[in-house]
């Protein structure tokens, strides 16, 4: 059995099946089962790639190497835990009357299709298809952001659609320019958008065209990553959409968009030896980190605050990849993994907390430890982890990024520290009273799913203390490919 085909086919079939399943009693189980099956086949695919090296699928249309198989595994894993989390969460929303059966069906079906588009974006070898899949990922989530049909959620979804649409149109122009540069070298054989072919000739791509193409690609896909100043859609979409959607947007979609930039950066680096692409990414990364850090302290909505925290971390990661080199790339990949795991865990905890207290306003959420110690500790530990406290993996990656910056770009270190410090002060001061303190919240009809929170945090803790050797090898190989 081909694990690759299974990985893409399961979410696609599940999405179609769920759109027909409606309110049948087994529909929620299909969602969880399909996500678990996707994860299992992604794990199988990973084992295969680790053992046998990169491979193609469907001719040269798909290409899986150690870099993207790692994202595939991560995406499928977070997809699975989110499906487990969303089951009681959505049921609670339904019994509160926030959702109708029809919308619940839309949610489940679109969630699976969203997973499918992201997996296609990650595994495709064709940069044009990558664009198509990224746009499709936006389309599948637009109606999810507006799932509650409140005025605010409609506005958020509209903003998301228009800003990401315009952003991704820039990326299409970049892709056209890239194709144009490649066609001059590779000829009109239809292979000029295939990454594996492009990477062989990256040294002979025209530098004038490539520099312009990379700017468009960075701004375009950067809009989806949430790089400042194109980040406006992100806090709204995260705050107004259902929490499982926030978790996958933050934990997965941003990663996939960043992955698209990384693939293009490898090509741009080959064509432009001066490090132009890296400098551009460092600049955007630092600016994003600082802008997000200073917005953090002004937030009142808990999901909005953690959305800004995602922007901040995307800034750090973009900066790390901008520095380039084996250590910084390794740190960037590690940070991406840690951010996905920890941030989705935080959103799971935040979702349950907001549901219990019936509000997302941080001033009205108090005493989570008294309401449910597991949610309280989950949020507290998650917050400490995302802020880069030592035993967790975020500390390891941030430490590597900082020391590397000190060595090669000393001017950037104070700015990095400033951003991290401001973010720490802002987030910690707001989370602390939410977790401790008194409360008067009611019981929910469906018990929350806490396991995913602690599984994610446990993994983040393990990666902080000890990264399994096969994972290190895998990270090293991916980092080497990024140049």
């Amino acid at each position, binding site marked *: 059995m081909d694990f690759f085909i299974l990985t893409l086919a399961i979410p696609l079939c599940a999405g179609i099946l769920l759109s027909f399943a409606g309110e049948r009693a087994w529909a929620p189980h299909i969602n969880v089962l399909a996500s678990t099956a996707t994860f299992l086949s992604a794990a199988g695919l990973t084992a295969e790639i680790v053992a046998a090296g990169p491979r193609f699928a469907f001719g040269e249309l798909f290409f899986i190497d150690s870099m993207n198989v790692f994202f595939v595994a991560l995406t499928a894993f977070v997809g699975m835990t989110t499906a487990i989390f969303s089951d009681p969460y959505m049921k609670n929303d339904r019994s509160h009357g926030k959702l109708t059966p029809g919308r619940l069906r839309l949610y489940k079906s679109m969630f699976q299709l969203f997973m499918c588009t992201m997996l296609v974006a990650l595994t495709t070898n064709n940069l044009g298809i990558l664009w198509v899949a990224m746009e499709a990922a936006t*389309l599948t989530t637009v109606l999810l952001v507006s799932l509650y*049909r409140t*005025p605010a959620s*409609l*506005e958020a979804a509209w*903003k998301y659609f228009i800003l990401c649409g315009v952003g991704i149109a820039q990326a299409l122009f970049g892709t*056209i320019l890239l*194709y144009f540069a490649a*066609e001059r070298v590779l000829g009109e054989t239809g292979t000029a958008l295939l990454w594996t072919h492009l990477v062989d000739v990256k040294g002979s791509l025209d530098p004038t065209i490539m520099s312009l193409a990379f700017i468009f690609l960075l701004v375009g896909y950067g809009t989806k990553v949430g790089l400042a100043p194109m980040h406006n859609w992100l806090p709204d979409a995260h705050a107004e959409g259902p929490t499982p959607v926030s978790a996958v947007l933050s934990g997965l979609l941003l990663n996939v968009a960043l992955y698209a930039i990384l693939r293009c950066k490898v090509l741009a680096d080959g064509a432009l030896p001066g490090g132009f692409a890296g400098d551009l990414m460092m600049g955007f990364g630092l600016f994003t980190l600082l802008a997000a850090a200073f917005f953090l302290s002004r937030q009142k909505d808990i999901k909005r605050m953690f959305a800004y925290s995602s922007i901040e971390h995307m800034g750090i990661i973009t900066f790390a990849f901008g520095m380039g080199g084996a250590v910084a790339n390794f740190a960037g990949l590690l940070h991406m993994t840690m951010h996905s795991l920890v941030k989705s865990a935080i959103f799971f905890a935040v979702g349950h907390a907001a549901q219990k207290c019936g509000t997302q306003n941080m001033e009205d959420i108090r005493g989570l430890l008294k309401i449910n110690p597991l949610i309280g500790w989950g949020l507290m530990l998650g917050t400490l982890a995302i802020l880069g406290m030592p035993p967790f993996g975020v500390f390891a990656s941030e430490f590597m990024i900082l020391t590397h910056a000190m060595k090669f770009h000393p001017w950037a270190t104070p700015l990095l520290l400033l951003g991290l410090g401001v973010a720490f002060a802002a987030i910690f001061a707001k989370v602390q009273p939410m977790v401790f303190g008194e409360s008067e919240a009611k019981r929910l009809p469906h018990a929350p799913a806490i396991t995913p929170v602690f599984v994610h945090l446990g993994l983040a803790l393990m990666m902080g203390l000890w990264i399994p050797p096969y994972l290190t090898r895998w990270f090293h190989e991916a980092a080497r490919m990024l140049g």
Partner: protein
Amino acid sequence: MTSMPLYAQLINLCAAVILLLAFAMLAQRRVVQLVDLFALQGFMLFLATLVMAFKTGQHHLFYSAGLTLVLKVILLPWILHRLVRQLHIKGEVEPLINIPTTMLIGLVLVVIAFNVAMPISQLSSTIARGTLGIALAVVMLAFLMMITRRKAITQVVGFLAMENGLFLAATSATYGMPMVVELGIALDVLVGMIILGVFFFQIRDQFDSLDIHHMEQLKER
């Protein structure tokens, strides 16, 4: 300077008309006429692609010309007209900046677009290399239209016009993207349009209007 061959003149003519239509859209106040202009722009795009297809004899250019005709001249304008009728959108589109100023900004954008595209179009070997600057200008004008208009539907027309400009860029610089990519893009645009249609009704039910100034609650305070 030797005179240009006929087909190159034809393509340049089509591109020039597309640019002109982009300006016309920028100046148009009525929604129904705006959709018609968009359809006309799609038709000129179809003609340009067709001329190029006949000249180069490349099969996939014929397919993409057909795709343009079906999608951008027939299907999308039809959906838009239906939406306008069902949602009872009528009359004036109030721009945020008055129209003469918008046109002047548009002129500046065209100059910028030509300057950016100049070094690249000199490298192009296709018969339509002069049109790359026009394509970029159309993208920027569409962008301007999205920024300066208030109605949700004009923003969508702007978005689609931007896609027209990108398509022109792809055809003029490289004889079009590979077929599988072009099909994917067309599918995305169509699905996006259908989702937007659904979305418009949600917005109207919620706000009783499609004016986006109702949607300015979410911002940093």
